[in-house]
């Protein structure tokens, strides 16, 4: 049996807001074929204020899928649509005191259902932009599709490369055989053969020895983001540096990346890369979570 938190169990045994909402004007239907989970989210949205007045779920799925659906309805009730869209799958998982790595996709399904429902309300078409693969690295919750894409995009050759770029395999190391299998497959498609002894791809990075000035830091961060941009754009997304405060870089993920369920992994990937290049601890945080800065002018007038 999975090691579920008490909160997951509570939401599963006593689900909140089960069933369809009467008179719903926003409906989202999504599923994860690999796990056989599917969710219909129905919302009643106040057309003047855009506040979600009621939310209900119907879920075909396992314990954590039902618990994620239940907690999602609790989180978003009373929020405006824009506020609700800021709820991430991590928020859903956090509200449940965490989910096993294999079950994180249940929280992703919740977030996707929400996006789909909002798109439905606004008369837009919601498209899922993430293909979900088999979970390879259980320590960092990284799937086969993600690893494959990174191997392609960065011409990775060794397990160490994969760990450097995706974190996959950087924990207990028991997935290294699976990572090698992915490398073998992609390298074959590229017309190369996998050689476990191969040199790791050259890291364009030499860690700086002296502490950086803030200007140097910003420049370096820009450099790294520019180097990552092509592969993000290949996936229809982009990244933009908004602000750097001490060792925190606030970025805007746009395009496909912004709604992508792997945004957090991408952010984690960028953060990992930045730390290597800058040789210091850097946190990357979505700009949406940036504390409101008091402008100097306003402060002056006060």
């Amino acid at each position: 049996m999975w090691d579920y938190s008490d909160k997951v169990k509570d939401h599963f045994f006593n689900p909140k807001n089960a069933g369809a909402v009467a008179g719903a004007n926003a409906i989202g239907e999504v599923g994860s074929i690999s796990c056989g989970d599917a969710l219909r989210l129905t919302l009643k949205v106040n057309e003047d204020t855009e506040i979600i007045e009621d939310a209900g779920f119907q879920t075909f799925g396992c314990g954590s899928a039902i618990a994620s659906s239940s907690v999602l309805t609790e989180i978003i009730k009373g929020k405006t649509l824009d506020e609700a869209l800021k709820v991430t799958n991590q928020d859903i998982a956090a509200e449940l005191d965490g989910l096993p790595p294999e079950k994180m996709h249940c929280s992703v399904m919740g977030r996707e259902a929400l996006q789909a429902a909002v798109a439905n309300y606004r008369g837009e078409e919601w498209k899922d932009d993430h293909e979900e693969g088999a979970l390879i690295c259980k320590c960092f919750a990284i799937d086969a599709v993600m690893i494959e894409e990174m191997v392609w995009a960065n011409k990775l050759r060794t397990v160490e490369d994969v760990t450097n770029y995706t974190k996959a395999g950087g924990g207990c190391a028991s997935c290294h055989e699976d990572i090698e299998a992915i490398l073998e497959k992609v390298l074959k498609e590229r017309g190369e053969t996998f050689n476990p002894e191969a040199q790791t791809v050259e890291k364009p990075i030499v860690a700086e020895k002296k502490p950086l000035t803030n200007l140097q830091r910003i420049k370096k961060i820009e450099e790294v983001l520019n180097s990552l941009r092509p592969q993000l754009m290949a996936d229809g997304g982009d990244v933009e540096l908004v602000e750097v405060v001490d060792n925190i870089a606030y970025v805007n993920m746009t395009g496909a990346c912004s709604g992508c369920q792997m945004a957090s992994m991408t952010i984690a990937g960028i953060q990992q890369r930045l730390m290597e290049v800058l040789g210091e601890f850097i946190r990357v945080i979505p700009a949406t979570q940036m504390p409101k800065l008091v402008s100097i002018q306003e402060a002056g007038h006060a």
Partner: protein
Amino acid sequence: MPDIYLDNNATTKVDLAVVDAMMPYFTEYFGNPSSIHRFADGVAKALKKARTQVQELIGAEHDSEIIFTSCGTESDSTAILSALKAQPNRKEIITTTVEHPAILSLCDSLEKDGYTVHRLPVDKCGRLNLEAYKNMLSDQVAIVSVMWANNETGTIFPVVEMADMASNAGVMFHTDAVQAVGKIPMMLQDTKIDMLSISGHKLHAPKGIGVLYLRRGTRFRPLLRGGHQERGRRAGTENTASIVGLGKACELAIEYMEYENTQVKAMRDRLEQGIIEQIPHCFITGDLNNRLPNTTDIAFEYIEGEAILMLLNKAGIAASSGSACTSGSLEPSHVMRAMQIPYTAAHGTIRFSFSRFNTMSEVDEVLKVMPGIVANLRKLSPYWDGNGPVANPEQAFQPTYA
């Protein structure tokens, strides 16, 4: 009511008589059976007795055909790798799509090493097509490995007949019989089966002990080399207490064989009949007329297995599921997929597997709670509306899939 254990195909409770038989071999008779002193003397004799007890249960001709291993998986790997090593010119393996991972993962890995693996498909009742099998047999095939009974549905394969066909084609035959041994009678000396795997913990012996039956004269290459234990065919100091335990368990299995096929079967039949009568939209999977007496696998449509298990567990009932979410990976049961069970049902399969330690009153208890559990989950399901599935479930609910 104490908890009800209906997951005996996963593992079984060790019989107390087995524990009693084992105990002296931890303390009093702790000697290494290879030693030449009185601490070892009784141990070697006990192993010999256990070997004949296993021999009798499976109807082997000689007791030297019994090789003790650490588990069913080791027996499976030993059998297949031995056949490949002994016949280096044969590069093909025949197996089925519904084998246990102990076989399938090994075959996947061998495929990467350049071997060709033929996986026989099954029909919607989980049955094999023997005509297709016959066409696969050739002098290129090193070994056929087909399970005696399926762990999920209990469906029994015609291994005796298939071993005959293999033998006629000059091909070695192995069967993973971990679910069948002790539940249905067998007489290996009357068959052409060359190798057979047994797992102790499936028949009330402890975990960590298994057997590979190896027909006398079958060409063999050991997996583990070292000392002369098991006549040099499986090196490593014998797991003496567990071997003694397995011997006792085999003796008990013979004693209870009739009970298993009458009383245990009656409990299974009553449970599945009761469920089918009380709960709409569920069906039994597998080959209903050709199954292990202790196993039933029921698909509850429009709900998911892990959720059912969690509610059963809360009610003190232990079972298992072919749903994706219970497997530890995200893959749904390969057995259900191979039988083309529709997706809205495959995820809601629950396996109840009995043993001689179950009772009819336990069956009644499960029948009391099961309808409520299914009804409660269906209330949450987007495929369900009030008292039945929504009209055209597949059309009415069409989620966007990731």
